[in-house]
């Protein structure tokens, strides 16, 4: 966005000399044996569009926990959205949306939006780029992984890439980053799996002069890299331009909306027949440390773009008869602090909500509202309710039909999936899910806790984990982890000189997650 701004204002009517002459025809001649070998593991026409909200989106002003409104108004006097402006959702009086998210409200009321509460990870990192790396690599917070979860997914589907790609069976880019760039997300074990595009009109002639052999020096490595990009781009350009020209948008998109522009191009490419499964687009500027605004202002402007763009995109897909094949998902590197700061903004925080939209998703609000204490301190965070990788697991399993062994490899360990996608393999519905969560009947007493506390809950037979999260949203103690029989269980734990403050107990039982706010006193 910033880049565009400069370029546009510095030189309107930019003309780079005409080079879109004679794009060479794809010279790849299909070798049947090769093609067979290069078939993807799972043949699917499902598409997922990821929308990255860069900078750390303020979850509490995006999805507003109405049942916490009183405490929220104490915690964030400078940026609180007046309750009469909060957008309401059909059939859910506890959860509202930011006034600028009319587009998403419409989708929710049409049952095309899933709101997933408080998504994060156990040891939140407050650095933009480290947390972005965690989200894109799907690593644990204290683990450095050099590849991305979607890079590993694509690598497991298209082993050997980029050697002999594109080919007759796979003429199209495996993933496209359009107007956003998160290189780690699509980084596979051996290669970058995504192609970057700013505008499908870009493709010019590619050189093919020098092909001197290279050695294993760094220079050889880099020459090979550039030649590979060059070779692929040349071939992919054909497919891309053809699709782009074939596809026609049917819906109106909002003007002056960067995200809308990029989603419009994505819709066109899908309609034009591109087989690409994954797209990344982005919206920038969510790092609202100062002057975040309330119902209007900086944050509102961004959410307006998001809601309007997503609604137009969904309408476009519906008009194109593609809406069953495409889902979208938003994510951000972290949420923001519960309390606002004196510069009328919010500092880096922990968990935040995610949106998944489309016709093939299970609409509703997944999970409970974050619980806001009446005496929020400067450092308090929204703790995670769902590990972000359980959302990834759901998409892999229920949207891309990845089997469980493959999924464990992609996500580096085992994660259960959640009721997010409407799918034959998915047995749970959101309603069932919430009924089951209620049946857990988690109690913790005494509250506030001074020395010893008892956790009481009733479970089914299966895996159970009880964790304690501190005010910063960090996992500080595992109270129980193991198998339990069905029935009522009691666990006790000691206050190990934990600093006083607002803590959360997180109970995780199979796919069920529940958080309980408890206070630890001096």
């Amino acid at each position, binding site marked *: 966005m*910033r*880049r565009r701004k*400069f*370029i546009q204002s*510095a*030189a*309107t*009517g930019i*003309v*780079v*000399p005409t*080079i879109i002459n004679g794009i060479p025809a794809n010279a790849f001649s299909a070798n049947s*044996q090769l093609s067979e070998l290069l078939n993807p593991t799972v043949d699917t026409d499902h598409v997922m569009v990821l929308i990255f909200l*860069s900078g750390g989106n303020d979850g509490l002003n995006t999805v507003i926990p109405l049942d916490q409104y009183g405490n929220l108004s104490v915690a964030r006097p400078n940026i609180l959205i007046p309750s009469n402006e909060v957008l309401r959702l059909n059939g859910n009086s506890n959860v509202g949306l930011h006034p600028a998210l009319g587009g998403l409200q419409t989708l929710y009321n049409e049952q095309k939006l899933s709101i997933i509460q408080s998504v994060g990870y156990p040891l939140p990192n407050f*650095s*933009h*780029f*480290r947390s972005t790396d965690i989200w894109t690599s799907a690593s644990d917070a204290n683990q*450095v992984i*050099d*590849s991305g979860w979607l890079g590993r997914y694509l690598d497991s589907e298209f082993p*050997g890439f980029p*050697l002999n790609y594109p080919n007759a069976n796979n003429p199209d880019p495996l993933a496209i980053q359009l107007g956003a*760039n998160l*290189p*780690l997300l699509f980084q596979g074990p051996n290669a*970058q799996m995504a*192609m*970057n*595009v*700013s505008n499908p009109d*870009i493709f010019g*002639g*590619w*050189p093919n*002069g*020098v092909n*001197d052999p290279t050695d*294993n*020096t*760094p*220079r050889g490595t*880099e*020459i090979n*890299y*550039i030649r590979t*990009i*060059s070779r692929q*781009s040349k071939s992919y*350009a054909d497919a891309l331009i053809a699709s782009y020209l074939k596809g026609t948008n049917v819906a109106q998109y909002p003007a002056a909306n960067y995200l809308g522009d990029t989603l419009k191009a994505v819709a066109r490419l899908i309609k034009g027949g591109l087989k690409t499964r994954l797209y990344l687009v982005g919206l920038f500027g969510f790092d609202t*440390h*100062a002057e975040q605004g309330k119902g209007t202002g900086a944050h509102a402007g961004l959410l307006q773009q998001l809601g309007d763009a997503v609604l137009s995109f969904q309408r476009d897909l519906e008009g194109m008869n593609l809406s069953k094949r495409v889902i979208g998902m938003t994510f951000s590197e972290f949420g923001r602090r519960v309390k606002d*700061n*004196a*510069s009328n*903004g919010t*500092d*880096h925080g922990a968990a935040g909500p995610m949106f998944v939209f489309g016709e093939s998703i299970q609409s509703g609000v997944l999970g409970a509202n974050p619980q806001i204490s009446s005496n929020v301190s400067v*450092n308090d965070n929204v703790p995670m309710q769902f590990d972000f990788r359980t959302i990834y697991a759901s998409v892999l399993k229920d949207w891309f039909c990845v089997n469980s062994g493959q999924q464990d490899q992609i996500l580096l360990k085992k994660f259960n999936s959640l009721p997010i996608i409407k799918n034959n393999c998915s047995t749970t519905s959101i309603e069932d899910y919430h009924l089951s969560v209620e049946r857990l009947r988690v109690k913790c007493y005494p509250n506030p806790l001074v020395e010893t506390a008892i956790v009481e809950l009733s479970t089914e037979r299966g895996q159970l984990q009880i964790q304690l999260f501190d005010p*910063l949203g960090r996992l500080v103690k595992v109270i129980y982890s193991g198998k339990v029989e069905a029935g009522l269980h009691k666990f006790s734990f000691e206050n190990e000189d934990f600093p006083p403050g607002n803590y959360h107990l997180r109970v995780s039982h199979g796919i069920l997650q529940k958080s309980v706010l408890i206070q630890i006193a001096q």
Partner: protein
Amino acid sequence: MNRTEFFNSLLSKQEYVPPQSDLTPYSGKWDESTSNHLLKRLCFGAKVEDVKRLAAMSMSQAVDSLLNLDAIPDPPVNVYSTPTVPDPDAPYGKTFVNAPLNAALPPEYYQARMNVVKAWWTGNMVQQKTTIVEKMTLFWHNHFATEADTVQAAQVVYYYYKLMRDNCLGNFKQLTFRMSKDLCMLRYLNGYLNSKNAPDENYGRELLELFTVGKGPDSKYTEDDVKAAARVLTGHRINPLTSPMSYFFLFTEHDLGTKTFSSFFNNKVIAGKLDGDSELNELITMLFDQTETARHLVRKLYQFFIYYKIDDTIENTIIRPLADQFKANGYEIKPILSTLFKSAHFYDLYNRGCVIKNPLDYAVGMVREFSVTLPNKDLLNTYQGWGLVAILSAYQGLNIADPPLVSGWQAWYQSPQYHEIWINADTLANRNKVAEGMNSGAGINISGLIMKIDPIPFTLQMSNPSSAQELTIDAIRYLYNLPLSDQSVQYFKNFLYAGLPDESYWTVAWAEFQAKPNDPIVKSAVSTRLSSFYKEIISQAEYHLS
């Protein structure tokens, strides 16, 4: 071999064996290939005359000649106002950098001023002396990143650039101290809003994570350290109404409590004081007492100037010794650059030609290497000419003064791809268009501003342009600093006599041109062929490396 084995054999890459060279001074042959390597890394592009001049010196003299600070050019001026809509702070042709924030400034002039600063900054690179100064300033800009688009005041962006440029070879610790009070940085990371009652942690966090101790494996600062640092940093304020805008310390907004740091900082305690400088000084001193601060910066220098891969050998033989030198000399920058650029490691063949040119290396470098004449008919036109180069770079992912985030450009931090991030389908296509446009008859034309390569001046610097063979070998030598196979030489050479039976036709055409250099028809016969020849050379993977 079955099919799977066949593929595995294609896929398996032999592990690259890191060089054994270290920081001992380079004692090998000193010639044009070494001076070219040095220039390509430390400047934007290597001009043939500089390659020759430095090759004639000793290695040590050559490096010393590049590690010299020169005076900053005159500040950017108003080239945007019209007689009907004047700039209230600066008449046409005069500088605006000392203007206060003035509510009477026509809104469109905010962006106009910013564009002027960007063009001017890029112009300084284009007109750089043969020194490291502009490249090093870019290094600092990426390190202490701020975004003009967020800051929204071109004046302070100018002073931010000046701070980095004036100190680019000076003292890192001092630079960090001054940067902490720099108006551009204060605006960018909300330092000027940081107050005792509700601290804004933005600057404190980045000061630790990005600017000093970093996030290396041995950097073990805590979240509480970030908060304590943010408290130390409360009270810095900007007075936007002075000329120029100025810094002041508002002790009523400063947290006078005691700040205690973690065991990583030896439980350092900073007591509240009424003046901001002494607390800031204590904080900076605490951060710079950490060896990690020296290592963090040396790693970034290594990745910027040598290669992005740092394995254990590099860490132990290069990073740590250089960091020790850095810390021991009180964080003076010039001596460690001197050690690095005179080292056997820097000239190791393994480390040559492996850095993917960043967009400014590419755009500014091309302009300098081919002595491109930019538009310059008047003041406005001159700024527009520099702006053209800035736009080329912006289109390829480096919009000067506007990095994507506070962590700088991804190509300088994002593992595992690093520099490779500069090149993707989009930017490579763009570079190829630039190569084609710059060598076309019409040139690159942006809003009527034209930029193109006249291939003659570069060619005249080659040793024997009348021989197609020698010209090709020479041009490749200067532009790639890498010898090619006979087959590739043949491929390029053909462009000099395309459509004709053999290279003697080129020799004849060149002789004619030398006899009648002002005859347009004769000149065009050689220059059109030269243009397609250079276009082809600069469109290859090899040209994107330095």
